[in-house]
């Protein structure tokens, strides 16, 4: 894709003069040293990439002094899409790619220690027939498990090597998109016409030269944002043996036959960081706390418009009442006075004694709320880890996938319950030194 920029027109003499001046300067001062720290990551074709004829490439990491970085890819041998799988909006020989950071060790296992960060939560399978009492159906995540064979319904062979319904899989995936953590992601909705910010395309010759920018230094330890393991959804899965063998359940529930949602990876967001904070932490332009006129919002022991904020109400509240908050400012739509909700001339009061619709305090709400932790610029703080590798992914379905690439081998996800084709393939990988 050729780019045209503004052209500065100078005469031949001026050009030769500039060249001579540059040459003299280099002789006097040596080569110009860039303030950026550059590292060239050699990208080696993966097994899948080599089978496609992908050639070794490079990803050059340039770290600017402010901690931002850009990763420039120089790739060749990128295969064209197969017939019938051409990317709409692109030339038939162009393919859609994306760049990713990886968190893996030499064995290809995740380096992220994030146990119990994400709760597996999906549509529960449905127990189909003659389930023994107490049977609890869970998805068999383990790869070795066999599907239910209707031709041999009495078979007890359910595959080997399984230790539980929830296989060992990292809760935080080992992929993080090479992009600014504040970038806008389309979650693949843009297709080839608007790929995610870590996406780029090859040209018609199978070459790809693209630069992705980050607002962190991927070479500086644990600086790369993590993304969460995806959630799975679906509506139909052929019957399978639900061997509910969660080792923590004793005695183990009986085996039963179940079916449930088709397991497909859904997009997820970055791993975020939360903290406990007082609920009423709103501040005005000059740092003043904006007094809330809403029951349930305020500081315990202080008065708001409707009385003292008690512990039960602290931490909960609601947005506005059905008449709008009583307000004495001249712009208020509902000035204070008779006629308000629960007041003379107004609708009856809330049974709980409140003037407006609201959510009751929840147990534990007096302890405060959990808020995401902002950084110094008011942005979300993201959990981060040390990137170990750079990978290039070829999207055979011509769609980038938001924060995660979706199903497929090598990303630490359980395989889909059905034999779905991989919509992407990792074609190149290189280690960050």
């Amino acid at each position, binding site marked *: 894709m050729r780019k045209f920029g503004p052209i500065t027109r100078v005469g031949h003499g001026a050009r030769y003069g500039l060249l001579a001046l540059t040459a003299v300067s280099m002789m006097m001062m040596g080569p110009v040293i860039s303030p950026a720290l550059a590292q060239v990551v050699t990208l080696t074709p993966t097994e899948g990439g080599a089978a496609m004829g992908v050639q070794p490439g490079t990803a050059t990491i340039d770290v600017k002094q402010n901690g931002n970085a850009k990763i420039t890819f120089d790739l060749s041998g990128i295969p064209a899409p197969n017939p019938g799988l051409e990317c709409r909006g692109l030339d038939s020989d162009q393919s859609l790619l994306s760049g990713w950071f990886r968190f893996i060790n030499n064995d290809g296992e995740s380096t992220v220690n994030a146990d119990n960060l994400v709760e597996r939560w999906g549509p529960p399978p449905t127990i189909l027939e003659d389930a023994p009492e107490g049977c609890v159906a869970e998805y068999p995540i383990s790869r070795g498990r066999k599907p239910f064979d209707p031709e041999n319904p009495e078979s007890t062979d359910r595959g080997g090597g399984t230790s539980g319904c929830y296989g060992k899989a990292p809760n935080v995936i080992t992929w993080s998109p090479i992009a600014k953590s504040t970038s806008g992601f389309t979650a693949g909705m843009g297709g080839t016409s608007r790929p995610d910010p870590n996406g780029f395309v090859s040209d018609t010759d199978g070459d790809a030269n693209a630069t992705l920018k980050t607002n962190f230094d991927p070479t500086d330890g644990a600086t790369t944002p993590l993304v969460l393991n995806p959630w799975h959804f679906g509506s139909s899965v052929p019957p399978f043996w639900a061997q509910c063998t969660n080792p923590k359940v004793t005695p183990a529930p009986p085996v039963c036959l179940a079916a449930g949602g088709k397991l497909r990876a859904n997009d997820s967001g970055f791993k975020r960081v939360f903290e406990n904070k007082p609920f009423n932490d709103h501040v005005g332009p000059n740092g003043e706390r904006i007094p809330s006129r809403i029951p349930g919002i305020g500081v315990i022991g202080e008065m708001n418009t409707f009385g003292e904020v008690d512990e039960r109400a602290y931490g909960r509240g609601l947005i506005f009442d059905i008449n*709008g908050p009583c307000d004495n400012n001249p712009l208020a739509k509902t000035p204070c006075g008779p006629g308000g909700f629960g007041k003379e001339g107004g609708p009856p009061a809330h049974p709980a004694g409140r003037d407006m619709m609201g959510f009751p305090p929840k147990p534990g709400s007096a302890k405060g709320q959990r808020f995401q932790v902002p950084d110094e610029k008011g942005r979300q703080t993201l959990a981060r880890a040390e990137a170990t590798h750079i990978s290039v992914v070829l999207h055979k379905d011509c769609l980038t996938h938001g924060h995660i690439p979706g199903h497929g081998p090598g990303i630490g996800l359980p395989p889909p319950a059905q034999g779905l084709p991989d919509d992407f393939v990792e074609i190149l990988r290189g280690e960050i030194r």
Partner: protein
Amino acid sequence: MKRMIVVMLVGFALVMAAPVGSLLGSSSEAWAAGPGEKMIKMFKAPFLSLPLRGFFYPPAVETDNFATVKVFESGQGVRHSELRYTFRGLTANTVHTLWFVNLFMITRHSAFPGVAPPSPQGNPYLPWTSGTAGVGYDADGDGVLTCGEGVRGFDPVVTTEEPTPGAMNGVAFGTGQSPTFDQNSFCTNEWGHANPVIRLPYDITTKNVPAQTPPLFQTEVVEFPNGETLKHRHVIDISYKRLYDENPDSPRFGYQKVDNLGRPIFQTYRLIPMVVCTHYDGGLGMTHGHHPGNGPGTGPTPTAFGTDHECLMAAMQTTQARDRQED
């Protein structure tokens, strides 16, 4: 969860029972909105308060907050919507987000009955920041984005810009306003007032609106100084519900279905109510990309710790403007 079901059902009943008074009845009453384009629907959709804890609460009451909805149609039959909201008395200087709720998705398709998967307003093909940038304005140039500075009563307009195939080199796109502003966000002013305007590339009164899948969760274990330990679950972003080619003879078997522009086709449902949510988030306010977070208004069962936002349980009478022939 039961409360959520009750609330949504009540909301549904309310909007279904709404009068059909303000809908433009004939094309002769419509006026042109642009070259080759005419307005085919217009109605005022007041926000209603809803009972939150059962039927014994006072009935829903119309508020002073409303949206003026207009639907336009081009000569080729392509429709888009424009929603101009008038909010008064929300929490001042605070980030808010607007959401649609797919009630039918709850009852028919949701894997989580009783949970309302919200659909954010905005062009589904435009990027989302997933809240990683925060939301607000940086009028004083200190790099800190808050709702308490800069423009008051800001009117975010979500544009419907066309894709730009040439700009595919790792460029992060804005959301129509800035890369730091999620599409369905707005700030209230010091009086809690706001007049956001949102334009959508579809007719919100039909069933052809984006739907979303239920959310992902992040569970944390929190320890308090007194030794008490509690588990807390947060909702993380979700994405649109996608459709897959299930024809084994198709070259794209197993892949997502795409339109003529190569964009995924997503599952669509009707919209029933709209909700507006306040984001507290320690005063800074962060929207949450595709999902506003956990909470009584839109999320699953509320958690013990509360959340970083709460939503006004309001319904919009979109039902009154629906095409009768669509089913």
